[in-house]
């Protein structure tokens, strides 16, 4: 599990070979700027991006409306009167072996997962952007040290490391878990962002700014960052969903706080009380779907950002590609 891989992102090695067709490279459309910022319009113009935004808005709405649509107590307080009930009007998603209401678990769990994923993503992104830029810009021994640390973290398995850390921890609250997860996941982002910053550093416009005598600070914030923004956004979304998966995973392993409602804890109950073996599908299906749909939404968002910023991945450009192949094929005539 925990698909911790920048699948839809280019690996740093190949990034060098690609033209950086980033958001900011697009011609500025100052004249048309309205209430909706340009990047939102771009993202919503892309099918995957639109689907991702829709899914995430739905999830956020679920999390915000939690107090009105589900009873928090029924997600955490055992109730022996209503154990192992199949989905019904009273319990839309059924109840588990302890009589916990699965619907309440899913709704209240959305709060934890979204909050943790967002916070961990934000912390890791700030850390990774700073370190990635420093590594790429300062170079020399600083770059060597940062790259080495990042590369080592890249091959150390995150889950066993986190299992080990949580085994030592005495408290496993939201804040502690957010910090621990962000602290282990930033290296993935730093690797991507360093590669991107390195290729940008040698671009003509950056060199030109340097020759023009602009300060390093201005080059970093005025030239580099705006051109990296789509990469940074993609990296943020990546850590966002990986953090959700990792957190739910740790809870599933029994290394969470069972007194708080969450998706991982719901699945933990499903597995420890062998609900599956008793054929109670609803106990694991709904929390699992909640995780899956959230992660899918974020993956779509990520794919949307990628397609908007790297036009080669867009399927709309297919026609030109077909034409090229037709031309290359012997006997292929273009009238």
């Amino acid at each position, binding site marked *: 599990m925990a698909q911790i891989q920048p699948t839809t992102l280019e690996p740093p090695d190949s990034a060098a070979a690609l033209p950086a067709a980033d958001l900011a490279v697009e011609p500025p459309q100052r004249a048309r700027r309205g209430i909706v910022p340009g990047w939102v319009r771009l993202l919503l113009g892309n099918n995957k991006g639109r689907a991702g935004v829709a899914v995430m808005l739905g999830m956020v709405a679920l999390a915000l409306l939690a107090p009105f649509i589900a009873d928090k107590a029924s997600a955490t307080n055992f109730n022996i009167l209503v154990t192992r009930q199949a989905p019904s009007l009273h319990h839309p998603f059924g109840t588990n072996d302890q009589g916990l209401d699965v619907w309440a678990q899913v709704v209240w769990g959305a709060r934890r997962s979204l909050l943790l994923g967002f916070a961990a993503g934000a912390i890791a992104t700030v850390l990774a952007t700073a370190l990635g830029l420093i590594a790429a810009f300062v170079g020399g021994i600083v770059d060597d040290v940062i790259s080495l640390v990042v590369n080592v973290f890249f091959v150390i398995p995150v889950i*066993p490391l986190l299992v080990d850390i949580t085994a030592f921890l005495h408290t496993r609250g939201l804040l502690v878990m957010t910090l621990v997860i962000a602290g282990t996941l930033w290296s993935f982002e730093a690797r991507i962002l360093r590669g991107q910053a390195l290729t940008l550093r040698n671009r003509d416009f950056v060199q030109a700014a340097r020759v023009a005598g602009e300060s390093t600070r201005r080059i970093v914030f005025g030239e580099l960052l705006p051109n990296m923004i789509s990469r940074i956004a993609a990296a943020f979304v990546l850590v966002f969903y990986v953090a959700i998966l990792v957190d739910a995973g740790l809870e599933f392993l029994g290394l969470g706080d069972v007194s708080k409602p969450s998706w991982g804890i719901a699945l933990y109950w499903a597995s420890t009380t062998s609900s599956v073996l008793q054929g109670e599908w609803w106990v694991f299906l709904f929390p699992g779907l909640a995780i899956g749909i959230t992660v899918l939404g974020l993956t779509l968002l990520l794919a949307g950002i990628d397609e908007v910023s790297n036009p080669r991945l867009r399927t709309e450009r297919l026609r030109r590609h077909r034409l090229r192949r037709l031309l290359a094929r012997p006997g292929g005539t273009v009238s």
Partner: protein
Amino acid sequence: MRWFLRRLGFYVFAIWVALTLTFLLPRLMPGSPIGGILQHLSASQLAANPGIIKTYETLFGGGNQSIWSAYVQYLHHVATLNFGLSTSNFPTPVSQVIAHTLPYSIVLVGLAFFISFALGTAIGMVAAWRRGGTFDSIFVPIFMALGAFPAYFTALLIMYFLGLKLGWFPIQHAYDNGLSPGFNWTFIWSAVRHGILPALVIVLAFAGGWVLNMRTVMINTISEDYVAMAQAKGLKDRRVMTRYAARNAILPPLNGFAAQFATAVGGVIFVELVFSYPGAGYTLQQAALGKDLPLTQALLLVFAICPLVANFIMDIANFLLDPRVRTA
């Protein structure tokens, strides 16, 4: 050759980092781990194993050693595979617990992971070649969706449908009760049957990543001039796809192998837990839950080193496949 030595140097360094990490972790954590460990053991158990407190102190800190002498002794303990006694399997040594469980995980993850790599890159290759075609628009969304679900959820689903409802495969343990591990057909057949569902979960969970990765790189490769050239020469479509485009596109996914394998090794904990498969991952979960710190510490080291070994093997493959690396 220099490239090779540099890689080797990196692995040695990474192993050293893993060692130091497992050394420092318990010392940086709040509270004294040693007290927690000793809570699990009775006075008579401690009396029966003189010197065990000293071993634990070396591994986790505490006592009145200086940190440097503890570090040297710790490295010596690791080199001689002396990780103390497991508190949840007292008085079995930690190294023995690992020796019993690790082989299952290595075979399971190793096989399943290579299958998922082969399957995933093949699907990614064809999907990119016929981009926008039926194959592309069916398989890519399926694998994308599969990748979104955590492996333990896929595992629970597969267990419910293929194991429980259809009853095709056994859903728990690594072999039938009553058999004892050995090299005979009854045991191997039983082990294979028990391994199918966990392996299927790993294949499904990881193939998606390879599909998307390969597809992305392949799309970029297809627009290269040498591919157009190969087509202009009138070579068969299939030959251009495999020998020209895919051969060059496979290198970035291959380079991502290490990180992917590290993830797979982590993921195996969930799969083994769901299927009660007695591998190293299940053991780690049980150890962490039961606060068997000596066992978790040693297993973390094992989990950190396994991907490095796999990665080293992949580097050799890379060395053979990529002429640019060979001449560097």
